[in-house]
C-alpha cells in the first residue's frame, strides 16, 4: 500500500504511514475541527493494511504528540485497539509514546493508553527538554 503522508497543520498532526516499512507516525498537536473526517480515512487504511499483512510481520507506531483533545483521544484509542488486535493475531507490534519529560499530562496519557494492551510492546519514551 502507498505511504500516507500528511503535513502538520495548525490543528492536526503530521502523519506518515509508511506501510512498506511497517512504520507509522503521528506528530504534533491534534484537535482537528472534524475528528471523524481526519482520522476516519487513516483508520480505514490501517485496518485494510493490517488485514492483508502476513502473520509474522512487524509494525511500529511512533506517537510524538504534544497535545490532543478528547475527541482525538478516542480516535487514538481506536487506532491502538486495531494494533492490539493485530498483535493478538501474531504480528509483532511496537508503540513508542514520546513525551516531553516535564509534561505530566502526556506521560499520564501514555500510561492510560498502554494499560490493557496485552499484545503490544508499549514504550514510554521521555524526551529531555524540547
Amino acid at each position: 500500500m502507498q505511504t500516507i503522508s500528511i503535513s502538520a497543520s495548525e490543528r492536526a498532526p503530521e502523519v506518515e504511514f509508511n506501510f512498506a516499512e511497517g512504520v507509522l507516525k503521528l506528530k504534533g498537536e491534534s484537535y482537528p475541527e472534524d475528528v471523524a473526517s481526519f482520522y476516519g480515512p487513516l483508520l480505514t487504511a490501517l485496518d485494510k493494511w493490517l488485514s492483508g499483512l502476513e502473520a509474522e510481520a512487524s509494525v511500529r507506531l511512533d506517537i510524538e504528540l504534544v497535545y490532543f483533545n478528547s475527541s482525538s483521544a478516542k480516535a487514538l484509542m481506536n487506532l491502538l485497539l486495531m494494533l492490539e488486535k493485530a498483535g493478538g493475531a501474531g504480528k509483532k507490534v511496537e508503540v513508542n509514546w514520546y513525551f516531553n519529560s516535564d509534561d505530566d499530562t502526556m506521560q499520564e496519557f501514555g500510561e492510560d493508553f498502554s494499560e490493557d494492551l496485552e499484545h503490544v510492546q508499549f514504550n514510554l519514551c521521555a524526551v529531555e527538554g524540547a
Partner: protein
Amino acid sequence: MGRMLLKDGGRYMGKLAEDYLSFKKVLEQKGIIFSFSGYVSEGILFALGDALKQKMALEDTDMNTTRKVFSVFVEQVQNIIRYSAERVTGDIGKPVELSSGMIAVGQEAGKFFVVCANIVKLADMERLKERLDHIKSLDKEGIKAFYKEKLREDPEVESKGASIGLIEIARRASDPIDFDFMSVSDSTAFFCLKAFI
C-alpha cells in the same frame, strides 16, 4: 454619538465610555483576563486558544499549567459549539453553523480558571446535570478510571462524545468542577461551568 458631550476638566462626560468601562471593571473584578460572548466557531476557538497560549507564555506561566488551561479551554469551547441551544445555521456558499455562548479565562487566588456558559434546552438539562454530578462525586483516581472507561466505549453509544470532554475538564482541574443552571424560559436554562487549574 447623537448625544452632546460635556467637557469637564478635560474629561468628556459621555455615557459610552462610562458604560463600557464599568463593564470592563466587572470583568476585572471577577479576575477575568480574557473573555468572549457571542457566536463561536471552530475558527474563533483556534484564534482565542492561540492568543491564550501566547499570553501565558509571555507571563512565563509554567508549561504544565499552560497545557492544562489550554486543554480545559478547548473542551469547554467545543462543548458550546456542539451543545449550545442558541444556534444559527445557514448556507453562505458553504454550510455554516454557529453556536452562541460565553467564554472567560481568569485568575483567582493564584489559580487560573476557565468558565463557559451557554443556553441549554430544559429537556437536556437533567441528563447534563446527572453527568456533571457524577463526575463531581469522583476523586482523582475515580475520574481517571471513568476517563479510561469512556475512552474504550463504543462511539455509537455516546452523543458526539460529551462525557469524555467533561471528564477531561475535571481531570485537568485542580479543584472539583463548579456548575450551575438557571431557568431562563419555559423551555431553556442558562448553564455555567467553571474549572480551576
